[in-house]
């Protein structure tokens, strides 16, 4: 734990201005910054959903750029299921302090007090209480009319149809058949009372773009993304990191293998992958060799065909 952000000895010169066309990362960055500024200009009370993962880190950097030399003009909201990796919580608190952002942490305390956990409830119900419900409650409590999220359209099939401004009705629900058409870069921010909009500035980024940008911009990350020998439990196809409170099944043993996380979720439901990639360049190299989509190691998307779509209709990010 506490490994520092990887040192990066390869930096990229900023391309000369006024060249004929922006390269693809500059074009994506420009689009995201434009979206942030539009939203802050037009919404009364926006918030950023901060999940501590690599996409959130990119989102934070883009927000810093959009409002420079000012500070990020909205709070970061972390929906804490209380099952997050301890490295994530430590990183979150340090990073928010360092960049001077206002951090809101929200838990569904009622459900937790009633003993909500993925083993008792199953992953679908557990996410329903600790993520979806908690998120909707937190948005309502804060009176937020717009929430930035780090979702990308390349992550999962139902996300490929998501708008950049994703309209949610009074119950926070998404109706895929009744989305507002989105033309040019003219985003419709008009709302009636109780309605809200989820905004996805990273819509057009791919996983590779995210890593290339983190590398080029030297953005700090939770060390769990980097490979290290860690104590784990191998359960079927999944590799689960072993902590003091990790739930073990009868007959299970721990072992030490070099591994890392491809995406960060809750401890019980996020699997690691075997990997030697202990630097950003190696991660990118591995990613290109892999050809396996990143959410595979999260249990929730595989519950049933179309499960992400069901969660989204209910208000999951």
């Amino acid at each position, binding site marked *: 734990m506490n490994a520092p952000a990887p*040192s990066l000895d390869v930096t*990229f010169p900023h391309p000369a201005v006024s060249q004929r066309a*922006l*390269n693809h990362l500059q074009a994506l960055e420009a689009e995201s910054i434009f979206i942030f500024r539009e939203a802050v200009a037009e919404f009364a009370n926006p918030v950023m959903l901060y999940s501590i993962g690599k996409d959130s880190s990119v989102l934070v950097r883009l927000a810093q750029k959009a409002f420079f030399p000012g*500070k990020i003009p909205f709070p970061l909201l972390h929906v804490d299921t209380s099952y997050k990796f301890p490295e994530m919580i430590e990183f979150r608190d340090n990073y928010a302090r360092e960049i001077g952002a206002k951090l809101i942490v929200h838990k569904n305390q009622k459900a937790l007090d009633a003993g909500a956990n993925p083993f008792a409830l199953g992953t679908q119900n557990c996410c329903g209480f600790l993520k979806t419900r908690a998120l909707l409650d937190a948005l309502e409590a804060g009176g937020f009319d717009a929430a930035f999220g780090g979702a990308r359209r390349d992550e999962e099939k139902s996300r*490929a149809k998501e708008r950049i401004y994703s309209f949610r009705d009074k119950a926070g629900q998404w109706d895929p058949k009744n989305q507002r058409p989105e033309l040019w870069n003219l985003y419709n921010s008009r709302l009636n009372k109780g309605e809200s909009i989820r905004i996805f500035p990273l819509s057009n980024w791919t996983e590779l773009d995210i890593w290339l940008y983190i590398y*080029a911009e030297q953005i700090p990350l939770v060390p769990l993304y980097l490979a290290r020998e860690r104590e784990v439990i191998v359960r079927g196809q999944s590799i689960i990191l072993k902590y003091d409170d990790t739930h073990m099944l009868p007959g299970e043993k721990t072992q030490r293998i070099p591994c890392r996380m491809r995406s960060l979720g809750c401890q019980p439901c996020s699997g690691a992958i075997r990997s030697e990639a202990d630097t950003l360049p190696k991660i990118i190299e591995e990613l290109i060799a892999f050809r396996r989509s990143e959410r595979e190691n999260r249990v929730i998307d595989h519950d049933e065909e*179309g499960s992400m*779509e069901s969660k989204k209709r209910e208000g999951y990010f």
Partner: protein
Amino acid sequence: MATATGTQASTKFQAFLDEHLERELLRFTTAGSVDDGKSTLIGRLLHDTKAVYEDQLASIKQSRVNRAAGPIDFSLLTDGLRAEREQGITIDVAYRYFSTSKRKFIIADTPGHEQYTRNMATGASTADLAIVLIDGSKGLLPQSRRHTYIASLLGIPHVVAAINKMDLVKYDEAAYKKISADFLELARRLGIKNAQIIPLSALEGDNVVASSTHMPWYKGPTLLEYLETVPLAQAAEERSRNRGSLRFPVQLVVRPDANFRGFSGQVASGVLRAGDEVLALPSGRRTRIDSIVTYDGELQEASVFQPVTVRLKDEIDLSRGEMLVSPDAPPAVSRNFSAKVVWLHADPLQPGRTYLAKHASRTVRVRATAIHYRVDMHTLEQLPAAQLEMNDIASVNFVANLPLMFDSYAVNRTMGSMILIDAVTHATVGAVMLERDLGTPSVELVVAPTTQVHPLILARSAKTARSIVQILHARNVPHVLLDDPYIPACSLACATRVAQLAGLAAVYSGEDPSKELMQQIEQFLPQARWIQLPDGPLDEAAFIQRLDQVLHWENSEGKE
């Protein structure tokens, strides 16, 4: 502490990174009729460029649905939503991503059947290139004409006709030639400059990524070769033909402390240069760029699409919705304009109804004043229309409550595009491509009246009346100009009353009314204040003073 280093990265990998960072971005859209095999084509592109991850492939192989004859139904890769998996049609825009060593691609995959034209327009609005799918066994159907028309309407610089299902016509060159000729004729009629025709089979993979061995008579590029090499710089050039003319709509005013005041935005066209003179619109003030600020340091200049924050030499009043432009080539500044409209909503567009309109960073209220024609999509004929139904494309005149600063869509996509929003439901109801400035309207748009008093102003000459209209307009006083020969002085009382009921000040520029008439007006319209101007040139200051007195009469009375 730093144990991880980048030095272990191989030089091969370094080369890869460099290559990837300098890749360009091409956005393209695909359109086709229901059975043209569009989803299959995209699935094939993703698969053959290795953009599909193995687990996704495994998941579609296991899927309960398989509409294809072969082992893999490629269309399942893009048909994301459950409803369309069941119905077997794509019902919304799906965005897909893949890259090769040369370019990164964003595909907007849009539905082909008629009732979802709005989604096609959505996908086309951000595209540099459009692929129109044509079923080689069926030829150029009305749908393909419609799609090609929309591509031309939305100003997509490059249009590719992909003649699919060549396997069904036994890769016959004659079939290709017939469709080719029909398409080129259509492209010529629509004024599409860069049209490319590629015969292929998405199902079999002919001419998608790999060259076909079945069509030796075709010497052109495969679809992917074309996507990788079509000149993008030209696309950018096309996009902003008036490159020299700066357009910088202000998105946000940034004021982190008392010492810094900057204007954030994205350059829509032209080049921002430190030291250059700029014109602020609509105020008309001139100043110079002091500095261009970004998170990554100050810039000497910024070009198209770069997001920056600008500081100005002078403390001028400038806010969101306003704009910095080249003083020598300003855009049109007008409240009255013509445009092409794609209607997106089931509630029809009705002339006279007020809509919200978002253009650049400014939102105004607009009303359609006339529908010149709508386009019959089968024949591309122009037909009369009283209102616009969903999926109609039409030529429409608009009037706005505040001036828009715009260029024609054909010249500048960012400065010529606008969306219409329903003022009650807030649905996005129309896509607008601005064309021409129609000059100053004589009938002003009614907005929420700023005053309860609607004075009658007797101008005595047409010239004075025009000056007064400008003053009223600048002060946001809704008004109507009574310069119609069918409103003689004797009907002035009635006309003024109608204007008053409509919440408008009336400006009359005809002959002087007689004393009896003025008495009649006062008698019947006790609330109608009136201002009679003296002969000779207009004394603006005196008029404005008098106007304010009249307008605020009621308020000051109310307070007493």
